[in-house]
């Protein structure tokens, strides 16, 4: 289990290390975090620019229920339903649904950044009809602990950037502070100056990063 070469001294990690760490992370998550679906490993094929096969971890369709805000965004599109009236009377076999709580869906991707040499968390939110959620709405879905973490910590802020593979803007936690605090984490947790084993790298990373987006890492995963 030669992991020494893959987690670097300054808190960074190599691509190989990331791959190992990601698999370990996904396994532990599956075992210890039963209230969530498991992360899947998405390979990218047909990437003509890259020689190595690159992959990312994906956790999708996490549902957060939130009560409907009185958002009056819908313009009345001015389409009259007169054709409807002509056609038929009300169909009694259709259940009339009350528009209740709105479900918000979240997708999370953990992607390796070759330039920063650390993992990055990308995420997005959308409502049940597919409309993307703005950052303000997303922040309202976050637990208050996350929101205060965002405001106070100088290492965590959310930016909107193009997803490296899907070519659409996603939100991400900006990685420029990552190596610093991973270094701190690794120093404080190692007893005899050993480096953090690569299997735990992503788990440790996520235990901090996940909090910002409201995803808890069960303690059992950190062992």
């Amino acid at each position, binding site marked *: 289990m030669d992991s020494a070469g893959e987690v670097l001294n300054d808190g960074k990690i190599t691509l190989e290390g990331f791959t190992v760490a990601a698999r370990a992370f996904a396994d532990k998550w599956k075992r210890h975090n*039963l209230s969530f679906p498991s992360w899947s490993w998405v390979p990218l094929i047909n*990437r003509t620019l890259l020689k190595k096969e690159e992959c990312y971890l994906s956790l999708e369709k996490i549902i957060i229920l939130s009560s409907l805000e009185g958002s009056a965004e819908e313009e009345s599109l001015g389409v009259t339903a007169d054709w409807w009236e002509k056609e038929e009377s009300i169909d009694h076999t259709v259940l009339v649904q009350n528009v209740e709580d709105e479900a918000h869906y979240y997708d999370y991707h953990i992607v390796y950044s070759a330039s920063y040499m650390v993992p990055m968390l990308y995420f997005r939110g959308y409502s049940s009809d597919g409309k993307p959620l703005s950052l303000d709405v997303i922040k309202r879905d976050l637990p208050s602990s996350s929101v205060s973490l965002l405001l106070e910590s100088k290492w965590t802020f959310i930016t909107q950037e193009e997803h490296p593979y899907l070519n659409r803007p996603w939100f991400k936690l900006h990685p420029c502070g990552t190596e610093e605090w991973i270094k701190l984490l690794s120093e404080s947790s190692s007893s005899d100056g050993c480096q953090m084993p690569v299997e735990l790298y992503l788990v440790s990373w996520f235990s901090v990063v996940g909090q910002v987006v409201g995803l808890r890492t069960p303690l059992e995963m950190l062992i």
Partner: protein
Amino acid sequence: MDDKRESPPTMILQFAPLNSSVDEGFWHSFSSLKLDKLGIDDSPISITGFYAPCSHPQVSNHLTLLSESLPSSSDEQSSTESTSHGNRNKCPVPGTLYNTNTVESFTKLDKQSLLKSEANKIWEDIQSGKALEDCALLSRFLVISFADLKKWSFRYWFAFPALVLDPPASLVELKPASEYFTSEEAESVSAACNEWRDSSLTTDVPFFLVSISSDDSKATIRHLKDWEACQGDHQKLLFGFYDPCHLPSNPGWPLRNYLALIRSKWNLETVWFFCYRESRGFADMSLSLVGQASITLSSDSSVPNSVGWELNKGKRAPRSISLANSMDPTRLAVSACDLNLKLMRWRALPSLDLNVLSSVKCLLLGAGTLGCQVARTLMGWGIRNITFVDYGKVAMSNPVRQSLYTFEDCVGRGEFKAVAAVKSLKQIFPAVESSGVVMAIPMPGHPISSQEEESVLGDCKRLRDLIESHDAVFLLTDTRESRWLPSLLCANANKIAINAALGFDSYMVMRHGAGPTSLTDDMQNLDMNKAGRQRLGCYFCNDVVAPQDSMTDRTLDQQCTVTRPGLAPIAGALAVELLVGVLQHPLGIYAKGDNSSSSNGGNTDESPLGILPHQIRGSVSQFSQITLLGQASNSCTACSETVVSEYREKGNSFVLEAINHPTYLEDLTGLTELKKAANSFSLDWEDDEDDDEAVDM
């Protein structure tokens, strides 16, 4: 219809409507398809929708469109997961997209007949037996849309055609599967379902038969086409389907066409159905439902009526979505640049006020070496409102030193600089608000004839209006005298003026002080000590001669102000940094000047960017730079109270006097007196008419 008196009062079977969910990626892919391939072709497009059984007790699943829903155009989906069959969360369902090219045609689409024609297809598939082979055909759907690719907004409306049973089916009973089955049956059904779902061959088959042997409670799941084989005395048969709905007392929409199929193919009056739902990826018998429906047989083989247009928040209206923020390239550029500035604030300067930068309007007098550099640096700071004033055209020697111009701008008659500069800015950052004014700045010492008077006065007015409609003015022209009128006008209107001038190997950048009358006008509420109430000087404050013609009779190199190329970028950049410093300072134009020697180490709370000097002078022959401080002079020909009042009082006639008779300004400000007094000392001055005065410094 048999009358079973002991049966409970039957209610009409009510179905929960299916709802649509369109992933952003679908619109991105569709836009590319339309732009690259389809053009104005609006023939129907075959698409694939995806749905899966409900997986959450409080939230129904939707019929989803993803980027892979569209017929693939070569390298579009190379980075996404492989589409298709075998994915348990994406049961493919065929659909048709009718996209129109205008809003009017969208509104005028005959929705009735479109719905009818899709329903027809379902009916035909039922009659012909195709639906038994490929049961996903029962959930065929249609979408009408209008894609506005200029505004990146999409209007759409789904229909899930459902064949209407007439009279409607009635519900005899409905309960959770765990209550209906015995525990052995439940266990066996769960296992069989999980197996069905785990196999990539069957996981996306959304309609199936559940056959339970009465001997050993063992359940098997079979395809619809195996119905014959499932007949037998010792078997209970349920019609199972993936139910996207989560509600405990209603089955989901797919059951509608399923019942139509059952009635038509197998003539059953009583149908036991099984709404299959999951949780955490496994069959969930308490969420799943088992029900008994009672239907009236009909010998009519004509296609039934159909319903199924999706409601939008309870209303009969299409849905719309605007994706300009994620698709419009100009907006993407704006948010990327804004991000950069925000990072600066987060990481280095938390007190940076970005709003003042994005709203400030800058007027650049001169679009030459200095003007181009200033403009680019302004954009780097997120300043996006830039106006150029320049009379000249781009000459062949310009592009190498004037960073906004290219060779193309010089070819032929040559483009006007003010125009070319604007074009260039827009190519760099499309969201910039920039305009160019081709105009000469009236100058003292260059007398004008009476015919020219009107147009020169017109230019003066235009210049005055420009200055008054902007917040900061950069004086970047190539002569001393052309800076006089702008300096006066800025002093008059109390606008921030940043002056930059180049010598051969030296530069000067300064900010003018506040206007003279402003001290009484605006200053009451500002808390300033006596030193602060002194105005900083302007470019002309230290002069003892009025600006005059410095250009005629000079040698060529002096006329063309030849300078070392490195200077303009340095001076231009310093000019912008100086402006930003003023804008970030709480006192703005009234901020007093700092010296680099007097500062107490740089950034204070008041001035997060560091010191804010009055003047900066530097040279590349020494690679040195110093800051200077000068107070306003009461005899200044441009910003003194005398001059500004005279201008306010006499307006055009004052300007004409100054232009035609430069000694007028000297008389007015008392410089004439001053010089007489100086000359009356009997000292041997060398005639000290500095050449420096003639060169811009």
